[in-house]
């Protein structure tokens, strides 16, 4: 698949081809480690955005990198490596969602260092936010995987339709259609979920109190 997320970046990306690519092609452990350390966070973020909190995060990240290693010989530098590996992560997440084997709890050892370190307003808000996020993902679970991914990449990640289409290997019109139907489905599901609205109000209220 050829990705053209930025037509002007094509020649630049070719010029800035990372030095460890050749090492990865040869399977050198140091090059693989360099690639992993540089893009692990990106892959984790993409998969978390698309799949939500799941104990399968480690498996999905590993699958993404193993798939990348298998096809790295075919990487020609026509898109940036980040875009290329993101597209693999999107496909891995899509495959996982379509398999329908979602597990909705996160194991305790996946609690992020960043979150622990970041100042939280209070425990109540933190719990509400987690619950809200989890509930939203539960609603998203009811939307077809492709529509869900298109919606999340477009709405939450703020990517353009062209980028989403390239990442998912679909046409722009198909992508627009997926986003449209996902929005419609999610709107209906959110409207039917009163608990969700109460949670949102609770969080907004707590934040206002905190700000005051």
């Amino acid at each position: 698949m050829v990705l053209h997320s930025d037509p002007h970046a094509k020649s630049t990306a070719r010029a800035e081809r990372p030095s460890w690519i050749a090492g990865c092609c040869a399977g050198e452990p140091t090059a693989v480690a360099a690639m992993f350390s540089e893009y692990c966070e990106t892959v984790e973020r993409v998969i978390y955005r698309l799949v939500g909190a799941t104990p399968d995060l480690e498996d999905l990240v590993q699958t993404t990198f193993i798939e990348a290693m298998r096809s790295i010989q075919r990487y020609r530098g026509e898109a940036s490596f980040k875009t290329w590996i993101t597209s693999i992560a999107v496909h891995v997440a899509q495959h996982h969602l379509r398999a329908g084997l979602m597990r909705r709890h996160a194991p305790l050892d996946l609690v992020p260092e960043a979150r622990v370190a970041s100042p939280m307003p209070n425990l109540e808000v933190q719990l509400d936010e987690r619950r809200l996020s989890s509930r939203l993902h539960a609603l998203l679970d009811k939307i077809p995987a492709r529509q869900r991914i298109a919606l999340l990449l477009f709405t939450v990640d703020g990517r353009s339709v062209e980028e989403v289409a390239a990442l998912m290997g679909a046409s722009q019109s198909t992508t627009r259609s997926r986003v449209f139907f996902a929005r419609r489905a999610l709107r209906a599901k959110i409207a039917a979920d009163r608990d969700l609205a109460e949670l949102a109000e609770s969080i907004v209220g707590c934040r206002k109190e905190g700000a005051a």
Partner: protein
Amino acid sequence: MSSCRQARDAIIAVVRQQATEAESLRLEVHLGLCASCRSEQARWHLMEQLRDQPPLRLGEAARGRVLGNIVMFSPAGARTRERSRLRLAIPFLLTTTAVVAVAWVLAARGWKNSAAEPSLAEHRNTAPAVIQPVLVQAQTQAKTIDQIIDQTIRAQGPGTLEAPGARIAYRAGTSFRMLARGRRIELFAGEVDVEVAPGGPGRFRVVAPRFIVEVIGTRFIVRPTGVETLHGTVRIVDAAGRELAVLHAEETWNVEQAGPLPLALAEDGFLPTPPPAGSVRTVAPALVMPDSASASDHHPVEGATKPPGRNRADLLIAEARSALAAGDPELARARISAALGARPTGRQRAVADLLAAASFLVEGRYEEALAAYRRTAESFGKYPESETAAFAIAQLLCERDSTDEARTALQAYIERYPEGRFVQDARRKLASLP
């Protein structure tokens, strides 16, 4: 902003943080006039929650594991594996050649060696043969189970081993290792026929390269490619302890049914330790009595017929529940014990364990109840009973004024089950703790 449709597009643009100042202003004006779009905006603000939440990340240990696996699957890793195989193969071939030569010389001297080797099925019906496993590593012979513990064995001919509470028959060419005082076998090649007496010392396991068989008092045959149960019940799990299948008498299971599995052999202690099925000293809640354990939610064995024992287990669990409701915890535990011996499914075992814990609670045996709840919570993670047990632990600790432990248990429950049935109660309890 002329229409609600345009306003809704603008709302999405705001959520995506890509709205211009002018668009935002026009949207504000429209929202001031249109209640419907205000509710629409409130709904889409929820999506901001997903964007603003910091993503979960793998810990350092998990990253290390992932990196190790990636390197292993890289082209260089494949070459390393190939070299390792060659390094292992050369001494193995030399050893095998030497062993074959010795056997040939002995046979030439008139030893009645098995020219036509009986199959394992034939071997099962014969008296135990002389145990003379050949130790590949030590190149010596051992005659008792103690001498071969922790040693890799490659059997030249068929034979049997008597382990504590179990008898293991093997055929020629079988390669295996006995661990955990003879209660665990790692099978590398060939075939073992295992007969395990119920109520032996601890759980008996056979670890094959791609799956693990847990024994619940039975007789069965294990090959690296599958399992055949002759009588009784076995549970097949993967290296992570996830249940792949439960096999009853006369059923077979093939590893291909399990799909891709981790190839690495598991280390000691990796598995959760569900309570021994034969000795019911387990589990469960005063909170919620499970309605029914009839859900056959273990992974069904393809082509296997539904065992008649499942209904019996249901019946016994129902009797246990009635006995507990009537205030007779001993009778309840007797029924639970019988149920666990009646080929229960994974779900039925979880329900039985919860009931057993409840029976301890009724008698005021808090420590045993707590231990039973912990086993249920850890061993039956995929069933609702696990959630019930997790909350029961926290509740019990609160009642016993173990404040710190109760806080930890409540936080763990909320973390693990953010939409759980008891999450509101858990949060209230957490807030009320001193």
